[in-house]
């Protein structure tokens, strides 16, 4: 059932429904510019690139030459630049303001990282050119691997996963391979109910049955529940997938006990590393009994999110899992770096296979290493301290007005509220979030984690100044007062000032329109 309770269609009582407000001829509102699709403004013959013609006396396409048009519009360079610049101006971004999405770690993206990633020696090298011609690239991968294993206190690392979820898959595959090497095929994976959806999806993809571990009243995992599930399925639990700090923003106090319990039962501890930003230089997953953990370079190490990727998700591994890391990997001998790409020598005998063509997200590696070099050991520790400080500062500024479901522990780098404070108002978590848009903020993560009702999860990161946090706190306080004062339209009609009002997600899902198709000819449309 839809326990998220959030409306997915514009409010039907909204009297603006179906009556577009057109205060200007163009539909534009000063700097807010309406922009058609390229299919409405482009022409198949228009082109923004001059291509040098090359003579071809003897084509070799056989009978495979295309005989049908593609239907691709083109634009000249000035038209294309204007089109995409106008589109860009409809986006919110971390460069514009606080982006408090919990568990997403939206921090500043330094531009030196972009400059470095575009050096021809990184951007213009091919994954399959001779290894003697890419020694600098292989060394960069090794250096980054060293930083990541040192930060996490882990034995080894697999660098090729392309995103967090891909890293999760990699870690769980290593666990499956390690069990297979012992001649075991266990069938259950434990996942706390507060976990990211990727965790059960990953376990299920690998054929495991997911057993849900309930949360304690204080938002953390009870080692007794874990032990209970292990005892109920003796010899059958392959792993636990635990996020730490967890998605409620709390450090799991019994993480070591949980690790011990799973190890005693012959299973492995997979840690979801989405929240590494809270503990760099403060605690090491390797000291907590973790066997595998993915690291989101696009979160903690600030490689930009880019509107939904690309990410990078290297996985650190314990000694027990290290031999099962996937191909390829980098080794060093006699001062030369070598890429092991196939099971052609002893060092790769137990590798579980290949996760992707080529060697991983090099462009993200360069950016992440630039970020780490810039911060250093002292700076990364300061990053985690400031991230935690900022989250607790927001908590201190709002906890008298908003409801904290788990007040017993300090928050780590993100603070979780539930919707109890909205109970006697006509405002939902969604309405509250949409009103933040009108105030110039991106909303926090809503309705996740699922363990509390109407969750609002705020992660400010270390990038916010005190002044920025003060204004954010003041804004949220004003919104809470407005909600309690019954100013419901400020919420239910929100956003009122964004490029679009609330969008009809129900209509989008019932009749999916996933590509542009030409409108019917005028005569037909007029009938």
């Amino acid at each position, binding site marked *: 059932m839809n326990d998220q309770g959030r409306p997915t269609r514009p409010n039907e009582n909204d009297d603006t*429904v179906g*009556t*577009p407000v057109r205060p200007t001829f163009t*539909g534009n509102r000063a700097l807010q510019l309406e922009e058609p699709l390229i299919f409405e403004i*482009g022409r198949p013959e228009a082109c*923004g690139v001059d*291509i*040098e013609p090359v003579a071809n006396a003897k084509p*070799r396409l056989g009978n*495979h030459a295309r*005989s049908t048009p*593609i239907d*691709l519009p083109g*634009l000249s*360079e000035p038209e*294309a630049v204007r089109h995409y610049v106008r589109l*860009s101006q409809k*986006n*919110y*971004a971390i*460069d514009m303001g606080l982006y408090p999405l919990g568990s997403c770690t939206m921090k500043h*993206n330094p531009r*030196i990282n972009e400059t470095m*990633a*575009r050096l021809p*020696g990184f951007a*213009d090298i*091919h994954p*399959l050119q*001779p290894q003697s*011609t890419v*020694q600098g*690239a292989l060394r*960069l991968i090794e250096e980054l691997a060293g930083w990541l294993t040192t*930060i996490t206190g882990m034995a080894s690392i697999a660098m090729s996963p*392309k995103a*967090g979820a891909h890293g999760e898959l990699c870690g769980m595959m290593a666990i499956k391979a390690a069990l297979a090497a012992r001649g075991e095929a266990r069938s259950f994976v434990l996942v706390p109910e507060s976990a990211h*959806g990727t965790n059960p999806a990953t376990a299920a*993809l690998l054929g495991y049955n997911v057993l849900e571990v309930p949360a304690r009243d204080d938002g953390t995992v009870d080692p007794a529940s874990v032990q209970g599930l292990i005892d109920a399925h003796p010899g059958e639990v392959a792993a636990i997938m635990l996020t730490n700090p967890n998605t409620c923003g709390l450090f799991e106090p019994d993480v070591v006990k949980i690790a011990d319990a799973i190890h005693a039962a012959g299973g492995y501890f997979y840690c979801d590393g989405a929240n590494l930003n809270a503990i760099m230089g*403060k605690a090491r997953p390797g000291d907590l009994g973790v066997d595998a953990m993915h690291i989101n370079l696009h979160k903690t190490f600030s490689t930009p999110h*880019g*509107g*939904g*990727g*690309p990410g990078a998700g290297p996985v650190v591994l314990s000694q027990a899992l290290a031999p099962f890391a996937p191909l390829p990997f980098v080794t060093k001998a006699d001062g030369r770096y070598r890429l092991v790409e196939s099971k052609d020598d002893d060092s790769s005998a137990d590798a579980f296979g290949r996760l992707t063509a080529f060697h991983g997200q090099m462009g993200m590696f360069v950016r992440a*290493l630039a970020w780490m*070099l810039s*911060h250093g050991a002292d*700076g990364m520790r300061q990053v985690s301290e400031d991230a935690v400080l900022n989250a607790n500062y927001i908590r*201190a500024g709002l906890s008298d007005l908003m409801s904290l479901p788990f007040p017993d*522990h300090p928050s780590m780098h993100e603070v979780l509220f539930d919707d109890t404070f909205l109970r006697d108002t006509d405002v939902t978590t969604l309405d509250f979030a949409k009103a933040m848009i009108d105030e110039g903020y*991106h909303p926090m993560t809503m309705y996740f984690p699922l363990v509390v009702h109407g969750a609002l999860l705020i992660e400010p990161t*270390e990038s916010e100044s*005190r002044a*920025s946090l003060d204004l954010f706190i003041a804004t949220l306080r004003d919104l809470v007062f407005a909600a309690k004062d019954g100013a419901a339209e400020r919420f239910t009609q929100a956003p009122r000032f964004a490029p679009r009002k609330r969008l*009809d*997600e129900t209509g*989008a899902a019932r009749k999916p329109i*996933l590509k*542009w198709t030409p409108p019917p000819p005028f005569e037909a449309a007029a009938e």
Partner: protein
Amino acid sequence: MRYLPHTDQDRADMLATIGVGAIDDLFSGVPADKLLGDKLDLPDHQSEMAVARHLSALAGDNRAAGAGPFFVGAGAYRHHVPASVDHIIQRSEFLTSYTPYQPEITQGTLQSLFEFQTQVANLTAMDVANASMYDGSTGTAEAVLMAHRLTKCKKAVISGGLHPQYRGVVETLSGMSGGVVAALPPDPAGTEAIIDAIDDETSCVVVQSPTVYGQLIDLEPIAEKAHAHGALLVAVFTEVISLGMLEPPGAKGADIVVGEGQSIGNPLTFGGPYVGLFATRQKYLRQMPGRVCGETVDAAGDRGFVLTLSTREQHIRRDKATSNICTNSGLCCLAFTIHMTLLGEAGLRKLAEANHARACQLADALGAVPGVEVINETFFNEFTLRLPKPAKDAVRALAERDVLAGVPASRLEPGHADLDNLLIVAATETVTDADIAAYADALMEVV
């Protein structure tokens, strides 16, 4: 610490506001014996200048493709990307935005995704496309899993012309999730009888065209045989520009078309990040993995775009999701869309023609070297040479002469002695007459 706004005074004041004495009071959730006392054994922070010095030195220890004659392909291709593409994708509003979960303030990303999906669907002649996968290889593995779900069969028949590293990814993912892979032996000549390998247990046939060796494959009879057995045809490409000149897989009966989009808009970057293209038939939409963007209207009746059909995805379905994917290749597909818009239909065709022409010229020049044979009857911008000696040795010797000559087939398929002398060679619009002459001259010396 140029990225951290707080002064020590700010920190002290904020701790006082929170009501704790020291920062470690906020880390009280960490077991005391696990809280690190010492700093990590890593260097301290560095200036922007020092960082640039260090990384530039590493970059300098690589031979950039553009620094000399360059003919390496096999799944990643060097093309000219117009300067405006990189300029636009570095705009803050695109670069530093998150996945568009709040559609009212992310219409820029969403509309560009809608444009991307339409471009991909039209290029492949399929009904629908998703908003991208990590890359072509992971997309191929996802296509196989999708076929397993749709057909309730578990066996994927893999062509010997599929990029061996793509096959490796399929074997890993399918194998780990209970599938069976029936892979045909390497097929440099493009003459395998894959039709004979299809039976009633088959969920899908995975065929790449052009193959990793460059051969163009007639997909139509394979699709017919697959459909006769209730199986799907997964058509794969690694060079998307080929679709500017070649019949699209959608016109040949493919059920899922998947490929690498790097060639449009994205640099080589040593293998990633790239952008996987994924398209299918309308009737299979609900089993398609990955994000999709759809058109809708807002409360004022104005057109807008949203992420849709998310009940297929991990954050709703959890252990019943079609895939565990959450991020896609957002910024890479934006680069793809901008570059494709700059090209348009006419430009893409001209670009494809320039690629094909350069490859034909190269094949003629290299095929004229005594002892060297072009094994392909057909190709687009990549073909395979049979050398009179191991390709590995030739590539090494040619690199010493500053010619990056291609990919030895044995690097992708180790352990097949019959492939040792085969060299996979690519030519794009970036190749010049002088490059071709330099390659032919050097090859003459080496073989």
